Structure formats: structure tokens, C-alpha cells
């Protein structure tokens, strides 16, 4: 094991991964930053235009609309993945027999291909031909609530957010479950002996014990949702009702061939994600201070 104490050996071991990481992640980020100060359609020579792309971005009502949509998307996705995931994990932690079956079942959507999930939900929401959701509404006598959920601009955004939230509930559940069962039994037993029960046990013992996992999950989930792309891109309504920042970035860069403008939106996404992380960490750290 002495070899690991040698700084040079250590460096050699870590170097390949570091180079790979820098090349695949860092270089593109820097390059995007460069593009974001240029006007470039891929054919002519790129021209430096300073902050014009950013100025145009802040004046672009379609961009702000996509930011607004994205926030709604984040709220729905985070609520479903983290809170419902946590709820299921708590439930599951009380199940002694057959927990494995539940775990597998809930995890299943996370391994299905995104396109398949998107298509499945498109059919699920459809009104003509009649999809499962509207069929169900009819069946329980709520046929007046039937709607083309994905097409209707009032419900479209929620309708494209739900599949994304739904598919990873199981994944977060497994993460939380693993953290919950790792809480030492002694603590729980001691608390029970002291007369703590039910909700109190969860509130004062279980949740504080998995705080670090919660904060990590929240960060992963929030940044994931801020960069959400695939499902809204595949089944979203043509147009702005389900436009997210990432889909808008893609359209600007590749459909309307403004690589510079698209890159400036990409830079916005990075900054937005970093801010979200700092915010979540600040909240959790201040909580820790209280305790």
C-alpha cells in the first residue's frame, strides 16, 4: 500500500481519468463559452459579437417563457422523485417480507428506454384515439373531465412533466431506502424506549439521519430537471407550451442554426444549475446549524 503514499504514482493512476474528464467535459464547456460570444451559422466564418447573444437572450420572450416552464417542470419532477420517492422508501422500511419485490417493481421504469416511455405516455394521454387515462375517466363517470391532455396548453406542461417524475421515483426510493436501513438499529430502539413513536420517529430520528442523502438527491434531481430534455422533446406540443430551456437551446442551435445563441443559452443552464446547487447546499447547511 506504500505505493499510494507516493504522490507521483498517485498522479499516474489518476491521470487517465482526469484527462478523459477534462477532454469530454471541460473542453466542451469552454468551447461553448467561446461560441456564446460569436455569431456563427456553421457555414460562414464565426464573428465575435461580444455580449449580443446574451442581450438578445434576455430580451427574448420565448426564452423567458421556457425558463418559466422549466421552473414548473422542476417543481413537479422534484416533488415526484424526491418526496414521493421518500414516502415510498419510508413505507418500504416498515415492510419486512417481500421488500425486494417492491424495490424491483418500483425501480422498473428507470430501466425502460426514454423513447418507449414517451410513446407510452403519448398514448396514455390521447383523446382520439381514446387513451387509457380518458378511458379511465369515462369508466369512473368523470367523462366531462376528458381532455387531450398533451395538446391542451393548460395541461400540456404538467402532462410532459409527470412521465419524467414518474420514471425515477423508484430510483430515488432505492437510494433513500438504502440510507434508511443503514440507520443503526440501536438509535431507533433507544428512541422507542424513550417513548418516541410513529411520526416523531420519522421526524426526529429517521429524516435527520439521512439528511446528507436527501441533500445530495435534491441536488441531483434539481439539476437533472433543470436540464430535462428528452421526454418534453419527444412528446411535447409543437410550439411554446412545453418548451424547456434545453429544448429551446437545441432548437436555436440546431434547427435555426444559431450556434452562438444556442451556446449562450447553454451557458445560462450551467450557471442556473450551479446557483441551484449553491442554494440547496445553503439551505441544508443552515438547517444543520440550527440542529
Amino acid at each position, binding site marked *: 500500500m506504500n505505493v499510494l503514499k507516493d504522490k507521483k504514482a498517485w498522479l499516474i493512476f489518476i491521470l487517465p481519468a482526469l484527462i478523459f474528464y477534462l477532454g469530454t467535459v471541460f473542453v466542451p464547456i469552454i468551447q461553448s463559452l467561446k461560441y456564446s460570444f460569436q455569431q456563427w451559422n456553421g457555414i460562414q466564418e464565426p464573428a465575435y459579437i461580444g455580449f449580443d447573444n446574451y442581450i438578445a437572450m434576455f430580451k427574448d420572450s420565448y426564452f423567458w417563457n421556457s425558463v418559466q416552464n422549466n421552473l414548473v417542470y422542476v417543481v413537479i419532477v422534484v416533488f415526484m422523485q424526491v418526496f414521493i420517492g421518500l414516502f415510498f422508501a419510508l413505507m418500504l422500511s416498515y415492510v419486512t417480507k417481500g421488500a425486494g419485490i417492491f424495490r424491483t417493481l418500483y425501480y422498473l421504469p428507470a430501466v425502460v428506454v426514454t423513447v418507449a416511455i414517451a410513446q407510452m405516455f*403519448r398514448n396514455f394521454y390521447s383523446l382520439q384515439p381514446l387513451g387509457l387515462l380518458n378511458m379511465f375517466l369515462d369508466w369512473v363517470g368523470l367523462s366531462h373531465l376528458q381532455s387531450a391532455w*398533451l395538446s391542451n396548453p393548460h395541461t400540456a406542461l404538467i402532462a410532459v412533466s409527470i412521465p419524467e417524475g414518474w420514471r425515477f421515483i423508484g430510483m430515488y426510493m432505492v437510494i433513500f431506502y438504502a440510507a434508511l436501513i443503514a440507520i443503526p438499529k440501536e438509535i431507533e430502539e433507544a428512541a422507542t424506549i424513550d417513548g418516541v413513536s410513529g411520526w416523531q420517529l420519522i421526524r426526529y430520528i429517521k429524516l435527520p439521519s439521512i439528511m446528507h442523502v436527501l441533500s445530495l438527491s435534491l441536488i*441531483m434531481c434539481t439539476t437533472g430537471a433543470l436540464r430535462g430534455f428528452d421526454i418534453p422533446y419527444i412528446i411535447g406540443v*409543437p*410550439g411554446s407550451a412545453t418548451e424547456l430551456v434545453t429544448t429551446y*437551446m437545441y432548437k436555436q442551435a440546431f434547427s435555426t442554426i444559431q*450556434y452562438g445563441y444556442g451556446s449562450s443559452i*447553454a451557458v445560462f443552464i450551467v450557471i442556473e*444549475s450551479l446557483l441551484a446547487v449553491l442554494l440547496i447546499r445553503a439551505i441544508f447547511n443552515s438547517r444543520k446549524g440550527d440542529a
Partner: protein
Amino acid sequence: MTKKLSKVFTGLAVFSLAGAALAGCGSSTDNKNTDTAGSSNAPKEQTVTWLSARPENGAIVQTVRELADRFAADHPGFKLDLQVTADRPSYLTKLRTLVASGQMPDFIDSDADPFAQELVNAGLLVDMEKFLKDEGLYDKFYEPALKYQELPDGSLYLLPMEYHMEMTWYNKKIFADNNLTVPKTLDDLLAVSKALKDKGITPIAVDGVDVWPVLRYAAMYPFRTTGNQFIRDLSQGKAKMSDAAGMQAADFASQIGKYFQDGFATTDYTTAKNLFLNGQAAMYNMGTWEIPSFVEESLPEALKGNVDYFYLPTTSNAVTPENEFFGNSGIGLGASAKTFDGLPKEFLSYVLKNYSDVYVAKQQMSPLKFTIDDESKFSELFLRIKKDMDNYGSEFAKPWDTLLDPNTNSVMSDLITKLTMGFVTPEDFAKQIDDAIAKNTAGK
């Protein structure tokens, strides 16, 4: 310990996640230029690359592959590398990335859109008019097929490989049951649709996901009243959506939108077609490339003998004759000016000279003039439409999305969907389109 660990994790997670968002903008495909020269004695090895947006097993690709094999027999060393990406957005991304990284293939597919214009301006595409005239092929094409491929200034840099007309397919039984006749005018079309809807029948099935089938309806009125003038002027900022012709278009689109199937904005191509084929919708607007779906033997039992078609209805003050309507010659074929001279040129000439023989035998309408000698080999429907084609006027109605600049197009797809769904008024629609065009044509 856990705090430190979570810090490390957080950092890693953020950077790798954020990086993925950016990677899309910076990556480039490392598609090598495949021209390779062999030794001077052996036959010269040359691979001609064609990046194509056409369906993988479609008639065009099959035809070109067959012709390439024949061509290779006379030209040892020749190889065609045909790379097919049928999904249009993916194709365009691939093409634009290759062009951006200076690796344009020998042949590409492109619409006569502003991107093609940029390629021409940069001197990257071969002048096809000159090529065709040099080869004596110019007059061998059907005129509308070539005209469709022209850029707004009338120059020709793209070649048609297919030839289609668009029509409204309708369910004869539904029409007869409800005492309806084929609409002669666009107002009749609205009246017929209303009558059907009142009876609880879905009048029109439309593919809203791809937007263009919806956009066609907006383009109908102006084509009848102005020809392609309105959309040409609109795209160059010389006309406004809020002008009389534009408002007529917007009003018509908002009216006809009521008669599409519910939730059409998220109905895809196949689902829309199936709505019609299952008898759940009375009309379906689609082109001759769908002939194979509508010939008797492929129709479902209930629809056999019950499908017919009509072309674009007219208007009272129409300036275009009834035998001109929407049609297209598909995405065009362009050649890289850098590599064209030599084998690629020879190959293209060979393909065009033999194209119709192979292509028409696959029950397809060729853009190169052809006659049918043995009618028994073709379906009745095909022969009937071939006659219509021979009687066609001189110019196709231009789809709007091939003329508008990409930015306006993206605003247009948003607004046309909202307009036909009834979520914006024709006035708001016109105003927002005008704003977008003013903004996007300002710098040009």
C-alpha cells in the same frame, strides 16, 4: 467524513451533469472524408459519399443503390457510401455539423430553404442548372418538379428525385351517408366539415406533430388568391400576415382547425393516417407518396371501394387554375462544389439518365419524364394519378416552411398550432408573425 464525501459527490455531479448540457453544442462528428487514392497502377479507388435524408428502404434509396452497382461494374474502384438518416431533425443536425466542421459529403439532401441559400452563398453547392444543360438533361424533367427545387431567385442548385402531388383523400361512404358532395371551393370544405362535425363525425384527420400538414391549411387560401406571390413576399418582409391575403389565411386556418380530431397537436403521422384508414375520420390530406396505403389491396375491409380523392378546392376569386395545387418533388439532391468534377459528376449523370427506368418500376412517379408501356403492371389508382400529373399546370403551391427563415418557422409552428387549436385569435396570430418576420428579416 460524510460531509466531505458529499461535497466531493456534489461537485462531481454538478460538473458532469452541466457538462452534458453543453457537450451538445460543442461536439463534432468525426466523419472522415472518404476519398482515398489507390496506387497509381491499380484502378483508382474512389468512394463517393451521399448523406441522405430519405427512408432507408424507400424506392429512391433502392433505385440509387441498384444504379450504383451497375455503375461500379463499368468503373472499377467506384464505391457509393450511402448514409441514410431518415429522421429529418437528426439528419439536419448531422448535415449542419458536418458542414460546420468543413466535411461536407460529395452529395447531400436539402430543401431549397435558407440553409441551402447559405451553402450557395458560400460557394459550396454545384450549379445544377448548368450541369443539367451541359448533360442535355434539363428538358427531361417535369417542369414543376424542377421549379419546386429553385431558390427564391430562380437559381437551381438542388435536383428532384421524386415527384408528388397532394390531395385530400376522403371516405366515400361517410360522404354518401350524409348526403355530402366533394367540396368545390374552400368555403365548401368548411361547410362539409361542419355538417360532419354536427353529426358527431371527425371531419379531418391531421398529423399535428410534424406541423407541416397543419400549415398546409393556412397556405391554401393565399395560393388560390395570389399564387406563390404572397408567401414569397411574406418571407422577404415585403408582405404582411395582417394584409388581406394573410388574414384570409389566418381566418381559414382558425376555422378549419375546429374540424381536426381532438388533441391533433400531439397526433403523429401514423396515428393520423390510421384514424382515416379505420374510418374514424372522413378526410385526410396527404400526397401521392401514400398511394401504396390507398390502393384497394392494402385498404382495410371496411374501406375497400370507399376511398377517393380530390385536389385543392378553389375560391371565387382564384388566380391559380384548378390543376395547380400543392405538390412537391421532395427534398432535393445537392452536390459539393469542391469534389464534384470527376467521378461524382459522371455518377450523377449516369443515375439521372437511367433513373426513371428503375424508379417507375417500383410504382413511383418519377420527376424525369416517363411513359408507361405496360399498364397491367400498375394499379388503377397509380395510372389515374399519372394522368392527373400529365395534366398538371406549371407550378406547385409552395409549402410555407420551405420559404420562411428558420427563426420565423419556429415561431410559425408554435403559432399555427395555437391558432388552429383556438388558443390565439387570427389577429394576434398575424401580429406575432409580422413581428417575428420584421425581426428576422431586419438584418438581411
